[in-house]
C-alpha cells in the first residue's frame, strides 16, 4: 500500500471562505418576529447596535417620514434574525413590535 505524500493530504481544520456562516439561515429559529414600523422610527441606531446577529441593516438614502427628513432607514433581514427581541426591548420609542411567527 502506498501512503499519500504530505502535500497530497487535504489540510484539516482550515476554512478559507470568510463569513461562510452566512450559508446557515438562522431565521428558522425564530418564534417571534420583530416588525419595524418605519413611521415610528426616530433613527437612533440603537437596534442596529445591539442586534447579536448583525441582521438589522442600515440603509443610506433620503427618507421622509411624517415631514421629517432622514438619511438612514433600518430594515431587518429575516434570513438570520433569531427573534431574540433585544431590538424591540431596547427601542426607545417602541417602533419594533414582536409578533408570533405563523
Amino acid at each position, binding site marked *: 500500500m502506498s501512503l499519500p505524500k504530505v502535500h497530497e493530504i487535504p489540510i484539516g481544520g482550515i476554512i478559507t471562505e470568510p463569513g461562510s456562516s452566512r450559508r446557515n439561515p438562522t431565521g428558522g429559529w425564530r418564534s417571534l418576529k420583530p416588525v419595524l414600523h418605519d413611521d415610528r422610527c426616530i433613527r437612533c441606531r440603537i437596534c442596529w*447596535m445591539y442586534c447579536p446577529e448583525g441582521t438589522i441593516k442600515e440603509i443610506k438614502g433620503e427618507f421622509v417620514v411624517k415631514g421629517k427628513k432622514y438619511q438612514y432607514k433600518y430594515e431587518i433581514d429575516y434570513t438570520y434574525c433569531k427573534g*431574540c427581541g433585544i431590538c424591540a426591548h431596547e427601542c426607545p420609542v417602541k417602533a419594533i413590535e414582536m409578533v408570533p411567527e405563523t
Partner: protein
Amino acid sequence: MKVVFKTVWDLPAEELFASGHRACAGCGPAIAMRWLTKVAGPNTIVVNATGCMEVTTTQYPETAWMVPYLHVAFENAAAAASGIEAAIKTLRRKGLWSGKTNVMVIAGDGGTYDIGLQSLSGMLERGHRVIYVLYDNEAYMNTGIQRSGSTPKYAWTTTTPVGKAIRGKIQRKKDIMGIVVAHRPPYAATASISNLVDLSNKLKTALEYTEEGPTFLHILAPCPPGWRYPEERTVEVARLAVETGYFPLWEYDHGKVRLNPPTSAIAADPKRRRPLKEFLKIQGRFAHLTDAEIEELEKDVVANLEYLAKLASL
C-alpha cells in the same frame, strides 16, 4: 482613554462578524464579537480560546469570522498569540512585512480566570504586543453552565446547585483586573456590552497602546440560558450590572486608575447607584436569594466601589 468615537454615529458601519453563527438568540458575547471586529478592523488576527464564541462561530466547514482567525486550545490562547506576535516581529525584521497588524486574543472567563491564567500571565510578563479580550459571562457556558473563578457568590450553576448544603456558589468572584494590573501593562480596562461607545473607545485606546506592550479588556457579556433571564433583556441586564455598581467601568492607564461614566458618578454620589436588587431580581440564577444574602452582596459592591475610588485618587 482616547475618545475616538464621540457618539454612536461615529461607530464603524462595516461588519466583520457574519450572520449565521450558532450562538443562542440574545447572546451577549455575540454582541461583543460584532464590536470587537468592527472596531479592530480587517487588519487583525484573532486568537480564540475554546468556548461559546469559538464553538458557535466556527462550525466546520463554515466560519463567521471575516478576519484571520486561529483556534488552538482552551488554555493557551495567550501563548499562541505570543507566537504570532513574535512571527510578525521576525517578518518585520526581515523586511517582509511593514503594516500594522493587531493580534487580539478573545477568551471566555473559564479560559481566562482559570484554565488560561498562566498563559495570560506569561504573555503579560514577557510583554508581547497583544491585546487580550476577556468576554465574561460568568461561567463555563459552552459545556452547560459550570461555575468558574468568575462566577459571583450565591449564583446558581449546574456545579453550584441551590439546596440545603450550599446556596449557589460559595466563593467570591476573582479580581481578574487586579491580577492583570499587577503585571503593570500599559493599559487595562473594563467595559460592558450595554455601553458600546465606551467599549469601542477603550478597544481603540488599547489597540494603540499595544504598540508598547500587552493590553487587556474585560467585557461583561450576559448569557440568557446561563443567567436565566428572557433573551430580550441581555442589554438591560448588562446596563443594570453597571448602574448598580456590580460591574464598575474603570481603566488602568500607565499606572493611573480612572473611573469612567457612569461608575465615576456613582462612586462620587452613592445616591446615584441603583439598588443591587434590580440587577439580581431579573435573573433566575439569583432567584433563591434572601434579603440577608442580597444585603451581604450589596456590601461587597459598595466596598469594591470604595476601593476603586481610593485607587483612582492616588
